[in-house]
């Protein structure tokens, strides 16, 4: 079972047939939609967590307003809107990027897929796969943007909060444009009225409970619900809300932990929290995976999401959830971003500039220069590749939304849909009103409000002291694999890295790769290895 969508259109005359042959599985939440009249067909997925929208009469909404209003709401969707008379197709993805929607036009057809692997394999039958340089360079620097680019030049995607338009007469992609109204969101935020963090915390919990309840109420009865639980704060708070809403057994808590990941997730703290709130709990030890002890070349499947970090950190957990029949997983993702929203406004409005600065900071601060020849450093910092990007702003940080995308695909591949209550714009707006002491940075909001949640979470904490350790373990436990990748390096043949220099560096036990306790070196090298491996395995050049 998986959540993967597939739609292939060969001619405007066979839209009905294309829809009949398309794959739109039941994913539980959002709801599957298929509505039509004489002139229009609307198909895809939609659920709103606001009273003003309903999936029942969605066709009327889209006919009248397009996707604009639903995009600027707390709704999850991926929708295909066919105009039969004009022979046009508009495709839109919600502002939370809760679906990936890849597309490519080749062999006289336009193909859409929510998973990267299948569309890549189909395109490969027709033509050689070429790298998209902007995407590649960005990912080597850990820069994630809300983009229409993918690793492969001829495969595009619909960015979050955007609409892509296709002319089906000529099977032609026309354009992609943002539907986001960033000003409306920021104008809607009330000036801070809180005088105490205690009152703010009470209201935050009340709103989070409401936001969670709205999501729960839309889940079909036969869909088994899970929730991440950790000894951190965000997902644990969501699980507490669920325990107040659902009867005992209405959901289960799931928790994974690794012995090398520091004290981020103490199994004992999680156990005591679950007992306190009577939450059925299943725990999973993934130490072996974080140590990179598996034969990665056998286990990193080339058709899974591009990022094998997903494999190491999430795939075993995803499999565990799947074995337990979970179809909907509540998470605490976006928790950190939600509390830090006061710092996000400029990034919401200026996403391309942020990507540009992030790249420079990474190049400078992480001292990557020595892994990259001078010629590739010029490529990384070339303004032109940023100037050619479209303007696709998001309220939720673009970097987070795009970074989570491989996870959505990996979970979707096992028929699991993640629900992230902290991304609800009502939570984001409320976080703006946190009454912080003068001089205190917004990213400390969580730490400051935690004492007011002591009765719910007596022992939880934020510490993530060792999160970088698994990156280093790749170079310790998979040395042969890493050297094999470097010996056939595609990135080296493109002049982007110097494989010989990196191999010598990895061979040197005194290098700061093994001695830097911030793991910055390992984190720099990690995407180089996995992207190079992916390019080799898929013959992308």
């Amino acid at each position, binding site marked *: 079972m998986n959540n993967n969508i597939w739609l292939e259109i060969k001619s405007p005359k066979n839209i009905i047939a294309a829809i009949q042959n398309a794959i739109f599985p039941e994913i539980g939440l959002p709801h599957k939609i298929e509505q039509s009249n004489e002139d229009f067909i609307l198909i895809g997925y939609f659920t709103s967590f606001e009273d003003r929208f309903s999936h029942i009469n969605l066709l009327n909404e889209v006919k009248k307003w397009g996707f604009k209003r639903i995009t600027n709401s707390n709704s999850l969707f991926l929708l295909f809107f066919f105009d039969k008379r004009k022979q046009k197709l508009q495709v839109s993805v919600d502002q939370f990027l809760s679906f990936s929607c890849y597309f490519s036009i080749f062999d006289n057809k336009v193909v859409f897929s929510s998973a990267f692997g299948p569309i890549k394999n189909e395109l490969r039958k027709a033509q050689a796969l070429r790298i998209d340089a902007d995407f590649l360079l960005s990912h080597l620097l850990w820069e994630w943007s809300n983009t229409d680019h993918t690793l492969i030049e001829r495969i595009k995607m619909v960015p979050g909060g955007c609409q892509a338009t296709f002319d089906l007469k000529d099977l032609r992609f026309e354009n992609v444009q943002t539907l986001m109204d960033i000003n409306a969101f920021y104008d809607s935020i009330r000036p801070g009225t809180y005088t105490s963090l205690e009152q703010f915390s009470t209201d935050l919990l009340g709103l989070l409970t409401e936001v969670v309840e709205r999501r729960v109420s839309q889940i079909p009865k036969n869909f088994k619900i899970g929730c991440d639980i950790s000894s951190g704060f965000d997902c644990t708070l969501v699980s507490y809300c669920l325990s107040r809403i659902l009867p005992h057994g209405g959901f289960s808590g799931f928790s994974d932990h690794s012995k090398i990941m520091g004290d981020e997730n103490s199994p004992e703290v999680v156990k005591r929290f679950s007992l306190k709130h009577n939450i059925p709990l299943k725990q999973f030890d993934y130490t072996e995976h974080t140590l990179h002890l598996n034969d990665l070349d056998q286990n990193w499947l080339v058709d899974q999401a591009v990022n094998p970090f997903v494999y190491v950190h999430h795939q075993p957990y995803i499999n565990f959830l799947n074995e337990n029949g979970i179809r909907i997983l509540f998470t605490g993702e976006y928790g950190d971003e939600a509390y830090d929203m006061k710092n996000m406004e*400029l990034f919401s*409005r*200026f996403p*391309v*500039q942020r990507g540009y*600065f992030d790249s*420079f*900071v990474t190049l400078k601060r992480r001292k990557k220069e020595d892994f990259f020849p001078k010629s590739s450093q010029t490529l990384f*910092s070339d303004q032109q590749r940023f*100037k050619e990007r479209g303007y696709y702003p998001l309220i939720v940080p673009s970097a987070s939304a795009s970074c989570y995308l491989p996870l959505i695909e990996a979970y979707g591949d096992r028929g699991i849909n993640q629900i992230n209550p902290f991304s609800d714009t009502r939570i984001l707006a409320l976080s703006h009103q946190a009454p912080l002491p003068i001089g205190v940075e917004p990213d400390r909001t969580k730490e400051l409000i935690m004492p007011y949640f002591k009765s719910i979470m007596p022992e939880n904490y934020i510490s993530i002291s060792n999160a970088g350790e698994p990156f280093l373990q790749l170079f310790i436990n998979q040395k042969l694999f890493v050297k094999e990748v470097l010996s056939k390096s595609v990135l080296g043949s493109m002049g982007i890295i110097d494989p010989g220099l990196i191999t010598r560096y990895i061979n040197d036990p005194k290098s700061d790769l093994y001695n830097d306790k911030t793991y910055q070196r390992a984190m720099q090298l990690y995407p180089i290895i996995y992207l190079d491996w992916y390019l080799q395995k898929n013959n992308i050049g």
Partner: protein
Amino acid sequence: MYYQVNPESIIFLRTDFVCGFSTIAYDWTSDDIFFIKPTEYRILKFISDNQPVKIDSLMDLLDNDGDKQTLKTMLKTFTQKKILFSYE
């Protein structure tokens, strides 16, 4: 005094009109991102398009003494933040 923009601190995009010709810049002295108002954008864009730009050319863009004083302050601030490079 001549000025030119630091390309690592500011980037001008064809989509800048969407935000009313405002943007953000990176302050390398504090590692902060800060907002560039349309009036400041206009000056920085002029420098970027014509650099190096002599201060007299910038002053010629303005009519009154108040604006010229504001410009001098802006140039000083942006030079301190390494958004602008200056030399004699």
